[in-house]
């Protein structure tokens, strides 16, 4: 690892100032992606701004019918939170399947979405549930937040502060994990609620995407049968030594059916 100056601000303003003042700064939430990247000497930031000491960024609250999750809330906290489990069990399930227990104890929702790894789970959670990302500058609908592979709508000095999830009537997340890395080869979130009918897919493409054909099919009837014939073209899907595009396309169909069946419960 190259050396850097570590900042541990206790307020969002101080964090924004620190990142603004750095010649080549990186924001760190849980560090579950950034620290391994630094260890491999794939990045050489002058400054790292750790958000972990900012109390205001942690925690889960209900607000205006939404579940609002602070940016540095860990996956383990989301997975175990009674409110999340009661109102959006699909989200608790998603958080409970990220990485491994130790990663869940450190990794955060804000860090995950700001990184936008194409195989991460949370992007499907946000898009599939129609969430809104709160930042130091604005509020961004999830549909507009994830731009492309490792790319989001965030500006350089913009920090995610929270994510607000509307409470769906039904939702479920199903994931087919890479057996080595345990990231999603394919993950599908389906939901029906205030944000409409939503089907979001992670792992299969360069970034999370909505499966509109499945959404239309579910408009008729929210059942596994309704999506039984939904297929996805392999063209443009990710292909690597762990899963070809064709296999990923199949997994999208299978995970979709499983998710709809679970959500229709």
């Amino acid at each position, binding site marked *: 690892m190259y050396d850097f100056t570590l900042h541990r601000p206790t307020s969002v303003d101080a964090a924004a100032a620190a990142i603004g003042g750095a010649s080549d700064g990186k924001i760190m939430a849980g560090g579950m992606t950034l620290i391994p990247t630094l260890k491999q000497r794939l990045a050489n930031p002058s400054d790292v701004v750790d958000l972990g000491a900012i109390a205001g960024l942690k925690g889960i609250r209900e607000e205006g019918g939404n579940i609002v999750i602070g940016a540095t809330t860990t996956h383990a906290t989301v997975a175990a939170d009674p409110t999340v489990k009661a109102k959006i069990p699909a989200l608790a399930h998603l958080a409970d399947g990220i990485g491994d227990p130790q990663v869940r104890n450190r990794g955060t929702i804000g860090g995950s979405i700001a990184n936008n790894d194409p195989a991460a789970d949370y992007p499907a959670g946000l898009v599939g549930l129609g969430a809104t990302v709160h930042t130091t500058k604005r509020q961004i609908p999830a549909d507009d937040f994830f731009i492309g592979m490792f790319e989001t709508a965030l500006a350089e000095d913009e920090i995610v502060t929270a994510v607000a999830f509307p409470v769906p009537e039904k939702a479920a997340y199903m994931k087919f994990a890479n057996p*080595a*890395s345990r990231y999603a080869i394919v993950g599908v979130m389906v939901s029906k609620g205030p944000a409409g009918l939503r089907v979001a897919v992670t792992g299969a493409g360069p970034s999370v995407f909505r499966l509109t054909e499945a959404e239309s099919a579910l408009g008729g009837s929210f059942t596994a049968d309704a999506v039984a014939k939904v297929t996805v073209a392999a063209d443009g899907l990710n292909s690597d030594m*762990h899963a070809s595009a064709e*296999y990923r396309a*199949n997994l999208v169909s299978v995970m979709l059916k499983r998710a709809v069946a679970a959500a229709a419960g």
Partner: protein
Amino acid sequence: MPDTGIGASVRRTEDFRFLTGQGRYTDDINRPGQVHAHFVRSPHAHAKIKSVDTAAAGKAPGVLAVFTGADMAADNVGSLPCGWVVTDRHGDPHKAPAHFPLARDKVRYVGDHVAVVIAQTYVQAKEAGEQVTVDYEELPAIASSAKAMDSGAPQVHDEASGNLCYDWVLGDEAEADAAFAKAHHVTRIDLVNNRLIPNAMEPRAAIGEYDGGTGSYTLYSTSQNPHLLKLILCAFVLGLSENKLRVIAPDVGGGFGSKIFCYAEETVCTWAAKKVGAPVKWTAERSESFTSDAHGRDHITHAELAMDKDGKFLGMKVQTTANLGAYLSSFATSVPTYLYATLLAGQYTTPVIFANVKAVFTNTAPVDAYRGAGRPEATYVVERLVEVAAREMKLDPAEIRRRNFIQPDQFPYQTPVALQYDIGNYGQSMDKALEMIDYQGFPERRKASEAKGKLRGIGFSAYIEACGIAPSAVVGSLGAGVGLWESAQVRFNATGSVSIFTGSHSHGQGHETTFAQLVSETLGIPMENVEIVHGDTGSIPMGMGTYGSRSLAVGGSAIAKACDKIIEKSRKIAAHLMEASVEDVEFDKGTFRVAGTDKEKSIAEIAFTAYVPHNYPADLEPGLDETAFYDPLNFTYPAGVHICEVEIEPSTGETKIVDWVAVDDFGKIINPMVVEGQVHGGIAQGVGQALLENCVYDLESGQLLTGSYMDYCMPRADNLPSFRVGMTQTACTHNPLGVKGCGEAGAIAAPAATINAITDALGILSMDMPATSEKVWRLANQHAQAAE
């Protein structure tokens, strides 16, 4: 059964230190004044080194020295040798190109060692390493063993034309052809035994140290056989007198073969310690383990089995291409020959076998022994062949095996491939395994799975292995450069405790417990009075280390022999003390008695007398300290039957192992708990090979594509079931303990059982490992479509 004697599941002595964080692994050791090494490695699979510029790195903060191959050449440091000469089909020795610890003219795989930077801290060494500028002329690379012998393929070594290390045969081809001519049916298969990366959890590490006052070196190393490492370094590489190097292998975190060999890094640390005048430490990062630990397996095989109309085997022909990587690792040549083709008889009476092995060089990491070493490859060939034969002949897979088993009254049994099996009862293991798995109930279980939309399959593997490596005269005649005996020293201390010095090395096997049980029972002293010392050439007689499931069969036998010497000497002392004739003194459970009297002396009293010999036989030396060397008379032949049941979800290809039965015959068992643990771990590695693990190189560039746990899939707890382990027992006939060896069995048996079960579930004959979910999904769907 005694609490700590032979046959008791004594809880392990070594566990307390491991469980409380007090284990002492090489990286836990820090020597006064130590400095740190970082290796500059080749990013290319094949390139000429035009120049290496170390000037900038040499001036970087904290840097003491930067060395290249030229510096080692100037000191006459030799090539890392391969210790087993294989004679090819024309009577010539294998091609043995030089393998210098730091490359001199060319690099031949990604991760090959180009330079070493030595600095005050590891970070300084690593950062300075980025300033070493190497001017490479990139060359085309050959990473595929299938294409290595093609005309026009890039040549890894000038002296190995066509990349051929050797073309070797075993058996009589004409006889085999004659047997095939008479066949009712011939089964043919093509298979790949996938390349694996051993991945002991402790990365390799070394600390080299030089004492200018005495001119002697010490090397701490993560080694499975410190004595052999010392011998190789002194005699072949560094040109040191053997009494000037002490090798210490402290607690070692798993080996599985990968820590048998003499590696470049430990060689460089030892050599450089004198050059820089400070202890030099190196610990591999996991990514370095991936690129530079010796890999395992990597065979491509075509095999044929000839049968009569009843499914009786008439002959077998096997053609294998074995990938040895870019250089020959310490024992690489022996693995696809004497540890592989000699096992092709399996448990069967196949009368004629012909094997041809072509071993090739490629621009990949060296390949050498990995848990099982040749024997898993042989079992995979035999047990896949037999399974496919059963399906083609429409015979029950248990029945076809039974019809061909060597029968108990046929032992000792001379196979057509050099080995003579001493004892076994293969039908008994099969019966027990069938009963444990409830074979009768399988059709019902299959129906129940089908009702859930899943495919269920059952797969057998009746394996044999040759362990307890090995009779020195036999391996010597086959080209081994060393003898494969083992040593033991049993030292009574004056106050009755005992120190055992063994040339075997424990890196997880639990020798400190098993050997202490053996000594406790043999000498009749409490187990807590026995200390097992291993892993230090400074205190232990020359030994040969631990690999090939040899520790108990060879090392344990040496301990038993040394204990016998102790008892015989003690008997003389006891006779003197009790004023009896030696012939009248009996020994039982730690006590010497004069037959027919109530006179007795404990062995502790005898030991005290031996060291305080105030009243002592005039013709006897004081002291009670005996050394024995044991050279086995034959290999041992553990064998058994493993049965695997799988359930497959056809929509995704997910394969779940739903049951696993292992019935093994390891001969006599000292600690059943430890033995079962070895079986579990072996199966996990075999299942890993069959379902998950695969070392992949890009065939164009020679880059390692599976260079971390992100891409190389290690078996996790949720990939595996609990295992059901049963035992049968025929005692080995030729060692004093009747033991056979258990460390590799699981890894040998498991791949064939797993693939046989999956292909059974899918209703197909063959597929290659690893059976990833995508592969299984494709085959399930092809088969479903074909059936429609």
